[in-house]
């Protein structure tokens, strides 16, 4: 556990319990009546989406946790093996409900990379814009969501309303509210509608105001501080060991951001710094996400300013009804609001992909890392720890 940092850290050191057997397993005897098995989820308001954690608790302390997923398994990777490349697009976006656009982009990017298609400049800008908008709407849910886990629901109400305004913008631009189907191989499916920039600016102003409010509500709130500072600590040494990425790694002092490290789309033409914190607890992760929200607003404004007004938005691809992508394999990644989000794509030169594998950040965060973090946590903190990792079950089981 971390050193006593400040007065807010009142969590006792529980790491000595339960005892560990010689072979390294925890010494938990369920029949001793000192332990209770408790399922959190799948039907439970305190889990992120449709998943479950099987907790073994002693008093109010979790001594063992096991993540159960598969409640949302649809077998995307199998389904895409029997769909044409173009047909994979409506399918793949549903792998993550919260931010579907990253799926669209990555599959398009994989297809373009394997077949060597150049995307027009305008489309690159629009893709950057859509990905940032996706991050924006996701963060608007998760930043106040952290306070929501501590029953501070008013922030969530504000956040969800603002997210809805962003969804309205999405609807105007892409024709869809949640599943946008906007990024296709070769480009995108339309230019900005008239007056879009102004409406976008209006929404951004409201979000700026929201950030001030949420700052007062959450980050200067004694309850929130008490419940989050020093809780859910991630040891920086775990970052590589568990494959931690995104805001969770950045809150532990790692300045890792795919947008900066492996610039894709137009990110190398945008001016930004990687946000990070060093405390590595729930509070730090919340702060990183809030900073990310501010950064996203800034990036969207930069994109709007730098983006050309008109231009081709889709390159001509071969006929999509029988488009054969040359054999080969690739891995492409992007930075979603949860961290590194990547597609490993294998093509065997036929009209259908051989295999598409999604590397979602939740895959490691919600299973091995969460199981590790929950040990010795207070039962009441389980929910906040889970939300602070920003796990998304559909991308684990796909």
């Amino acid at each position: 556990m971390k050193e006593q940092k400040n007065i807010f850290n009142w969590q006792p050191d529980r790491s000595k319990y339960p005892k560990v057997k010689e072979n390294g397993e925890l010494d938990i005897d369920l029949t001793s009546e000192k332990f209770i098995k408790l399922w959190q989820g799948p039907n439970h308001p305190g889990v992120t989406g449709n998943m479950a954690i099987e907790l073994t608790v002693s008093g109010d302390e979790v001594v063992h946790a096991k993540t159960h997923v598969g409640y949302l398994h649809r077998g995307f990777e199998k389904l895409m093996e029997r769909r044409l490349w173009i047909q994979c697009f409506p399918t793949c976006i549903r792998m993550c409900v919260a931010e579907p656009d990253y799926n669209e982009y990555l599959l398009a990017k994989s297809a373009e990379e394997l077949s060597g298609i150049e995307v027009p400049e305008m489309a690159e800008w629009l893709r950057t814009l859509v990905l940032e908008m996706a991050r924006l709407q996701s963060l608007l849910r998760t930043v106040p969501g952290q306070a929501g886990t501590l029953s501070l629901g008013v922030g969530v109400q504000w956040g969800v309303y603002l997210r809805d305004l962003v969804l309205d913008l999405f609807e105007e631009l892409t024709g869809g509210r949640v599943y946008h189907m906007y990024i296709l191989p070769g480009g995108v499916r339309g230019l900005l509608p008239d007056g879009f920039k102004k409406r976008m600016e209006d929404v951004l102003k409201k979000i700026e105001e929201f950030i001030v409010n949420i700052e007062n509500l959450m980050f200067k709130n004694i309850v929130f501080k008490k419940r989050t500072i020093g809780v859910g600590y991630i040891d920086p040494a775990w970052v590589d060991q568990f494959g931690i990425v995104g805001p969770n790694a950045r809150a532990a002092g790692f300045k890792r951001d795919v947008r900066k490290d492996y610039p894709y789309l137009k990110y190398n033409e945008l001016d930004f710094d990687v946000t990070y914190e060093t405390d590595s607890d729930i509070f730090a992760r919340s702060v990183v996400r809030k900073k990310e929200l501010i950064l996203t607003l800034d990036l969207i404004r930069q994109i709007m300013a730098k983006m050309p007004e008109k231009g081709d938005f889709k390159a001509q691809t071969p006929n999509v009804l029988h488009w054969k992508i040359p054999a080969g394999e690739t891995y492409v990644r992007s930075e979603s609001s949860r961290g590194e989000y990547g597609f490993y794509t294998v093509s065997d030169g036929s009209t259908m992909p051989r295999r598409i594998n999604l590397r979602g950040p939740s895959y490691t965060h919600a299973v091995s890392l969460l199981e590790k973090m929950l040990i010795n946590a207070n039962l009441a903190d389980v929910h906040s720890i889970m939300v602070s990792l920003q796990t998304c079950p559909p991308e684990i089981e796909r």
Partner: protein
Amino acid sequence: MINENNNSENLNKFLHKENEIRNVETPDGSIIQVDPLNDYFCTDRPEVKEPKNKVIEKFLNWARAESLWVLGFGTGCGSIEIPPLVTPRFDAYRFGVQMRPTPRQSNVFIISGYLAVKTLKRVIRTYEQMQGPKYVLALGSCTINGGMYWDSYNTINRLDHYIPVDVYVAGCMPRPEALLAGFNKLKERIKDGRAEGANEYAEKFDWYKSNQKKIVKDWNMPDYNW
């Protein structure tokens, strides 16, 4: 017990440890055999409950229609549109719709899209635990005929084969506005006295069970629990 048609071999294969038949020592020292599935759960079949008085029933239906308490169980994609629905923008509370955390308090079950087999098992249990009269609102193509996942090995195609459905809302996924229209339709249906899902489930119980068991291969729970 009503699960005679159940494959006992299959049952044993998947039975959880705590549900196995075992010998337990009582406080007075004697040993008794415990069969948790039979001893700890009610094994009665659900019963059809006919309304007794038409006038009172009419009043009750009106009351039921105006207080739809929805179970907060996000079973699929569509649940992402629930937060906007219950927050200020669409504010479903003003229409008598509110979210509840447990099946015991709820009478509306929103199946928000596709159901993976693993979730279906929980959905059946949850549905059976809800208090009657209970209503099911099915969202999106997936519940009607499989939707996007029509050829998936792990999602059901037609929800009405597993639990009775009152109202379908088209969309993938339906917007909050469409959901509200769904609630309006459900209200109409309840006020007309046509929303008899719970009774239908009791009537065609064997059919529903055989469909459910065809899919839930590790049926390791009591046949009916409420």
